[in-house]
């Protein structure tokens, strides 16, 4: 059993007085593809945002690649030291957002090369070569010089995936990456992710409402409700034979809404 790539130990997260995550523990192995499902407000997106250091936690500890991301020690750091620590930790983590969040004033190529050049000291020419390779992989090489405003939602999201990959993270976070897309554009993004899962050994955490995609893509599915893990297991078991009432209810609602499992 290899040591886990991502480890949450008894994590508590509050928004004011409202508990978003309660005593949450989970661990993700290197190379594992984990899908997080649940109703909105269940805390699944918060898990990704905490890993990306976009949110802080109020209790517990988190390790990435064996190193503490949040722990009692890091909580005691001065703001400056803490930023230095997080800066170091973020090199392992990449994230793709629901709303793409491309930089509108830069073309696609520049969006992809910016961070490697600025944060990893990659030479301009090397960064461009890597970016073109990645854009090729997501089928966006022909749009390298387009501005985000000129792209369709699916194209924007594929460019955003290339941008996140350019930093070569060990852990990739996908936060409802198809939710903002028109239905006919969903598949082109999912195809890129399937390819990514096959061709790389990155650890991936995926928040999604696309249940059939989660079933095909994930090694393990985690069902969250009210900030707690209700049930987890291989996708076949969770989707076909859920044990918990709340999981059954959630999946029934999904089916009733006309979405396939």
């Amino acid at each position: 059993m290899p040591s886990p790539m991502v480890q949450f130990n008894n994590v508590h997260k509050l928004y004011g007085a409202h508990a978003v995550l309660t005593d949450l523990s989970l661990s993700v192995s290197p190379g594992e593809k984990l899908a997080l499902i649940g109703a909105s407000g269940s805390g699944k997106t918060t898990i990704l945002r905490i890993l990306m250091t976009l949110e802080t936690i109020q209790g517990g500890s988190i390790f990435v690649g064996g190193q503490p991301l949040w722990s009692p020690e890091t909580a005691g750091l001065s703001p400056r030291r803490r930023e230095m620590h997080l800066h170091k930790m973020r090199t392992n983590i990449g994230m793709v957002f629901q709303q793409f969040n491309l930089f509108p004033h830069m073309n696609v190529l520049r969006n992809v090369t910016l961070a490697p050049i600025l944060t990893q000291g990659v030479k301009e020419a090397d960064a461009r070569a890597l970016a073109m390779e990645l854009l090729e992989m997501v089928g966006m090489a022909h749009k390298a010089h387009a501005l985000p405003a000129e792209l369709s939602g699916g194209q924007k999201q594929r460019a955003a995936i290339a941008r996140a990959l350019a930093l070569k993270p060990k852990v990739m976070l996908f936060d409802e990456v198809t939710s903002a897309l028109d239905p006919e554009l969903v598949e082109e993004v999912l195809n890129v992710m399937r390819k990514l899962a096959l061709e790389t050994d990155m650890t991936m955490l995926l928040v999604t409402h696309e249940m059939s995609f989660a079933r095909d893509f994930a090694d393990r599915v985690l069902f969250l409700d009210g900030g707690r893990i209700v049930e987890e297991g291989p996708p076949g078991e969770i989707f076909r034979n859920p044990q918990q009432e709340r999981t059954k209810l959630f999946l029934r609602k999904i089916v009733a809404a006309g979405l396939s499992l």
Partner: protein
Amino acid sequence: MLAPSQLVSYILPGVILTIELTVLGNLLAAGIAFTVGFARLSKSTWLRLSARIFTEFFRGTSMYVQLFWAYFVLPLFGLALTPFQAAVLVLGLNSGAYASEIVRGAMLALPREQLEACIALNLSRWQRLRRVLLPQALLLMIPPFSNSFVELLKSTSIVSLISLSDMTFRAQTMRTQTGNTAIPFLTILILYFALALFISKVMRALERRLTPKAA
């Protein structure tokens, strides 16, 4: 009847002074706008509060009163300014106080998601500002700054109160010396408008240049 050469000799030196005041005043105003605007976004309560007091003070007292105060009262405290210095200072401070809101507003208008994308790409604080947030914010600032520059141009007309011979003062002199009212005032109205148009044309050209274009 007025000879055209007479009109030129009366008004032209005033035009030059008005332009000098507009350029220097606006440079000072822009510097103050960025300093104070960013101070108002600072984490430090002390900085935020002093920036707030600065803006409220200069926006709350009339520019006309400030001009008098700078010219007649400051010397009583041992700080004697020439009329030109007093005018540039008051124009710049007053306009800068208003324009600091432009800087602050543009930074706050950026979607929070842009900041989150910067964090996800591990950019440092300075890189976030320099590469992502500021280029987008600057573009948002151009139209309101264009208005602010024109407002300062218009405000320069009050400097005759502290004995500077700007365009308005020259027109007044011409009126009293030649007895002709319509021509001097119509002339400077048109000149002010032409300068205002020039400012907004330049700013629009700048906006076009800074707008990202696809290759």
